């Protein structure tokens, strides 16, 4: 739990961490860390993003500020994508398609999430490409950077391997009814996927801070980041709209069982996904705003 709390500090703005990070780590080492402590840290990080003390601005130079913003948007996108995948799995079955055809608001919200996810994904790739190419070039000469750059590739390969295992496990099951073992496999796969995604984000961030990168590439990455953040805001709003519309227009679907173990309802799943999306979109918007100020 203490280690998780230390990782939660990564949600704070770079300047805040540079000023208070060591002190907060020292405090966490002497404090009993509970779930409420984690919630307090998350809430504190959100406040720090939106009410950052002016005096902290001088602790981070413009280039580092832009690096932090670009990697921050990537982290938010990954968290958002996990919630978005949950949204896709929750609403993929035929009754939801039928409901989307019968109720225009549901249909519009669902299509909006899909369209904006394409916009966001393209913007992430467009922003990352001018940073990936120089990273690969510099990694040839710098062993430390080579390790950082190769970590995301290794994490992605591990995830692909785990996905293969999940598919094999799914095919080996008899019948189409969801089983407990299948649900547990899916949860394990999801947690492993989150772990791999965290490795990708942290390694990408470490690479970005360790390499030389032109101001133009960072400005371009931030411009794409703004588009990503806007797409995230749009998708979060569409998800909230979808959740409300489903509860009003198709309440029987909202109350139906959901989740890998069928232990929750569709409405509850959508609520959690919506909250995660709103938080990730808010953090992405905050970090791009600071990056834009640094870019001038």
């Amino acid at each position: 739990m203490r280690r998780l709390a230390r990782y939660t500090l990564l949600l704070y703005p770079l300047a805040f961490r540079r000023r208070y990070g060591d002190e907060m780590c020292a405090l966490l080492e002497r404090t009993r860390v509970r779930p409420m402590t984690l919630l307090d840290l998350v809430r504190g990080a959100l406040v720090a993003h939106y009410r950052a003390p002016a005096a902290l601005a001088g602790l981070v130079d413009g280039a580092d500020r832009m690096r932090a913003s670009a990697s921050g948007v990537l982290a938010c996108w990954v968290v958002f994508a996990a919630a978005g995948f949950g949204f896709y799995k929750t609403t993929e079955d035929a009754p939801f398609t039928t409901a989307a055809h019968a109720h225009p608001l549901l249909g519009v919200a669902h299509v909006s999430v899909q369209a904006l996810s394409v916009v966001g994904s393209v913007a992430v790739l467009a922003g990352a490409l001018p940073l990936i190419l120089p990273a690969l070039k510099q990694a040839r000469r710098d062993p430390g950077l080579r390790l950082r750059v190769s970590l995301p590739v290794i994490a992605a390969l591990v995830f692909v391997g785990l996905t293969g295992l999940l598919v094999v496990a799914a095919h080996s099951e008899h019948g189409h009814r969801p089983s407990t073992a299948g649900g547990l496999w899916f949860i394990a796969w999801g947690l492993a996927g989150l772990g791999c995604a965290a490795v990708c984000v942290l390694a990408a961030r470490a690479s970005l801070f360790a390499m030389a990168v032109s101001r133009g590439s960072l400005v371009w990455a931030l411009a794409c980041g703004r588009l990503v953040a806007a797409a995230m805001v749009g998708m979060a709003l569409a998800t909230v709209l979808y959740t409300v519309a489903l509860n009003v227009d198709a309440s029987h679907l909202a109350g139906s069982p959901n989740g890998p173990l069928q232990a929750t309802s569709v409405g509850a799943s959508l609520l959690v996904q919506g909250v995660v999306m709103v938080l990730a979109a808010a953090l992405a918007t905050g970090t791009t705003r600071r990056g834009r100020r640094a870019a001038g």
Partner: protein
Amino acid sequence: MLTSLAEGPKHGYAITLDVERLSGMRLGPGTLYGALSRLEDKGLIEALPADARRRPYRLTAAGSAALREQLQTLERVARSGLDRLRVAEATG
């Protein structure tokens, strides 16, 4: 937190313990450092050189004045409240 620092410089953990003793409320690390950053930004407290990874904070002159003003206001409110309760109990 200003009251806690009124008796001398303290670092984050010591402030947490003191605030808990004074008010019964345990400050989380996010709340504590969010408040410290805002108080520092307003010039009400200042950081002293770090001792290992712990950095003590102390009240500034402006912080002392702000604390005194707040406490005097609280004292007036408390005194008025108690007087009114006494009058109400005496009359009825």
